[in-house]
């Protein structure tokens, strides 16, 4: 562990980051708050409206719906992608060596693709009677077509599947690196103590990988929250049938740039933002080692408990 130096820091190195932060985060943030307190107008003279936009939002059933959808959708994506990736990472370690590279590349391919392209491909596979799934797997057996994009019961599932397709490769890669970082000795020790495979996963692997997992989960959550093209392309910019796929980001875009209600759209962002930030911080904080700072000094790993290793990933404070 390095020690922090007390000599005069090279402040100029901080300057660019904080310049961008001030100009393109703080200024828009302040302006956004201002816009959210004004009446809905495009550019012209907006009148101060106080909390009217927020009050209107509280009464807006569609907004409540979008909020609920978004929370549910994010939770579903995290709950689907993380365990699947962890399982795949375990499998990948067992695969015949020559197959590893190509398999990894195939899994990673969707992650390297613009989500717009993914959504288009997804449509080709899943969409209506034209879609590959219905044409190849359902129709020949006389089964009715499933409308993956139109059926309100399936829309959210479709969106989650799209994210699963997009992120599994990356997450698997991250977990694979994490798994390789778990010292063999820990596993051997646990095995000698008579721990089952499940116990080893829960008590050895997962604690060691917690920082990495937290990092990965935060990344995934941000991308899931803001990903726009999925819902936009699949559902044509609307919320889909019965608004089953209405997400905050698409509803906000619709309100701002289709309806021109800037005030309401800004109010929407600022209502949802605290939720996202709280979730992100909870995730990142959960990645910090539980056993506290004292063990962290033990950098050589001599006698360090497994829980105290890998201190870096999710650290929120320097």
């Amino acid at each position: 562990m390095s020690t922090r130096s007390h000599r005069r820091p090279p402040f100029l190195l901080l300057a660019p980051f904080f310049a961008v932060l001030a100009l393109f985060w703080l200024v828009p943030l302040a302006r956004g708050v201002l816009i959210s307190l004004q009446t809905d107008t495009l550019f012209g003279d907006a009148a101060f409206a106080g909390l009217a936009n927020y009050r209107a939002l509280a009464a807006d059933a569609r907004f409540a719906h979008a909020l609920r959808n978004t929370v549910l959708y994010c939770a579903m994506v995290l709950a689907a992608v993380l365990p699947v990736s962890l399982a795949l990472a375990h499998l990948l370690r067992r695969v015949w060596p020559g197959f590893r590279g190509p398999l990894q590349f195939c899994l990673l391919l969707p992650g390297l693709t613009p989500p717009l392209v993914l959504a288009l491909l997804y449509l080709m596979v899943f969409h209506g009677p034209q879609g590959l799934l219905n044409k190849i797997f359902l129709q020949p057996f006389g089964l009715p077509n499933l409308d993956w994009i139109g059926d309100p019961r399936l829309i959210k599932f479709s969106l989650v599947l799209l994210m699963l397709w997009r992120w599994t490769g990356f997450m698997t890669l991250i977990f694979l690196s994490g798994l390789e970082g778990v010292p063999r000795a820990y596993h051997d020790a646990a095995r000698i103590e008579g721990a089952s495979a499940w116990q080893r996963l829960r008590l050895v692997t997962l604690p060691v990988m917690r920082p990495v997992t937290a990092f990965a989960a935060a990344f995934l959550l941000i991308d899931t929250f803001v990903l726009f093209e999925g819902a936009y392309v699949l559902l044509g910019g609307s919320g889909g049938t019965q608004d089953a796929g209405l997400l905050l980001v698409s509803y906000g875009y619709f309100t701002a740039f289709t309806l021109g209600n800037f005030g309401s759209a800004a109010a929407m962002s600022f209502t949802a933002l605290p939720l996202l930030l709280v979730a992100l911080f909870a995730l990142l904080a959960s990645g910090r080692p539980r056993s506290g700072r004292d063990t962290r000094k033990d950098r050589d790993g001599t006698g360090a408990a497994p829980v105290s290793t890998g201190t870096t990933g999710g650290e929120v404070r320097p």
Partner: protein
Amino acid sequence: MSTARPSLTLRARLRRHAPAALATIVLAALALAFAFPFVWMFTAGFKPDAAIFNPFPLLPERFDPRHYVSLLSGEWIPYPRQFLNSLFIAGSQTVLATAFSCAAGYVFAKFDFRFRRTLFVLAVLTVLIPRQVMVLPLFTWMNDLGLLDTPWAVIFPGAATGIGLLWFTAVYHRLPDALPDMARSEGAGEYRVFLITLPLIKPALIAFALIQFTLAWQEHLIPLVMLFSTEQLTVNIGLASLNAGSLRVPYGLLMAGCTLTLLPTALLFALAYRHFRTALGQLTET
């Protein structure tokens, strides 16, 4: 697993190889499902429009480059121009975001100064706000700055990232002080010392730049809002406009265009994969 009565050695061999075989088969099936639409997309770029929605037969009767020719000649959209726009935007954003967060992370990890913790929390808290959530005030702000419909309206908001700051602070946190201290004792100034540390964290730099480029290349909402003239659009927005056309959608052309968007990220990943793995490994290393 096997109910027959194999010889002992066969059974032993089975037991030894079965897990690997099973893992390979399961993963291969999954990888096939993941990658199949891409194969379809690739071959569809050579098929006539009418045949595109049926993936079988997978291979086109002959590899007809018609769609690529018409795409690159700019008959429908100025594709080459939009491709370059995307490259420029994603490239600049990557360079700036990597340089800025790396420099800031270095100072936060290696120096103690007043308000360090406050500044750090402020920075992370603010910059963790996804810029997509702020797209509306960003739009009016860029309008006031006169940057709308220029690449800078997309590049600047991506030039700092909260995840990047966290990443580089963590990376520098793990970097021992021996080498920088040696440089100091040789009389190097603080800025020079920072430059000297850069080669030491090369894998982390490359890994971050790789992720950053991939995400910037994929960005959709910000360019959709900030850019409007066809000549300024990024490749994603250009392709989306093809798909949204009210007249007939040129599917073959679209598939060709989609295939080409994969090139930069796939190429970079192939080149930098090793560093990416090293950096990830170092973060979990005990």
